[in-house]
């Protein structure tokens, strides 16, 4: 029997049974980010001193473009999940918490879409 009032439940102040999913996708994205991040950082280090044309040439290689898209998608997903936990921990006021959670999701989605589109534009254009 639940001692929670129907209003309490409706406002979502209890388990919505999404914790396990959040935990799991956070771990899966972490595992994927290990090789992707190492690849990215060492590749960009080798681009040191490269001009616009050279960077464009690098991004245009099909294998690089695909790896970049995977990296960006995983990175922004993982970041979105991570920032969500930080907001939930520190923002106490219910309205401010909801607003910052939604804002964080929007910003992450916009940055992910824009950066992936940029890679595709360079690679295909």
């Amino acid at each position, binding site marked *: 029997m639940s001692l929670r009032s129907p209003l309490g439940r409706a406002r979502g102040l209890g388990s919505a049974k999404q914790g396990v999913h959040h935990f799991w996708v956070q771990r899966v994205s972490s595992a994927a980010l290990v090789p992707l991040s190492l690849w990215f950082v060492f590749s960009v280090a080798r681009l040191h001193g490269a001009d616009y044309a050279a960077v464009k040439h690098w991004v245009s290689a099909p294998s690089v473009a695909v790896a970049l898209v995977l990296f960006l998608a995983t990175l922004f997903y993982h970041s979105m999940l991570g*920032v969500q936990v930080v907001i939930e921990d520190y923002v106490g006021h219910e309205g401010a918490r909801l607003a910052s959670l939604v804002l964080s999701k929007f910003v992450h989605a916009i940055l992910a879409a824009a950066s992936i589109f940029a890679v595709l534009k360079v690679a295909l254009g």
Partner: protein
Amino acid sequence: MSTPSSAPNRPLSPFMLGQYYRFQLTSVLSFLHRLTGVGLSLGAALLALWLIALAGGPWMYAAVARHLTAWYGQVLLFGFTWALMYHLGNGIRHLVWDFGYAFSMKAVYAGGYIVAAASLLLTAAVWALAYAI
């Protein structure tokens, strides 16, 4: 008797730090994982800006690259490199814990030292590759 109030009239936690709270490797590394995580999220926005500028053409790219290649940009990128290497190493430590391993005090400290050392070595390797090779 204490009554719950929205503004407690007593010292809050920061005043405990240093004076009454002894720092330990474990708590500092845990805190750094969160700090680097949030820092890297800002770094991800910078990465998006760099790619968008690249797609925007040579003019837009030059406007962004000018700052990234300046000394302050390089310092920032060096910081992001270390943050990523630390967060990555400590993230693997988290994943090992999630599988139920390395929970003894000895293993927790050993893992902490390994991750700290590896983050410095990897950062040095990345920048050696950029500047020396």
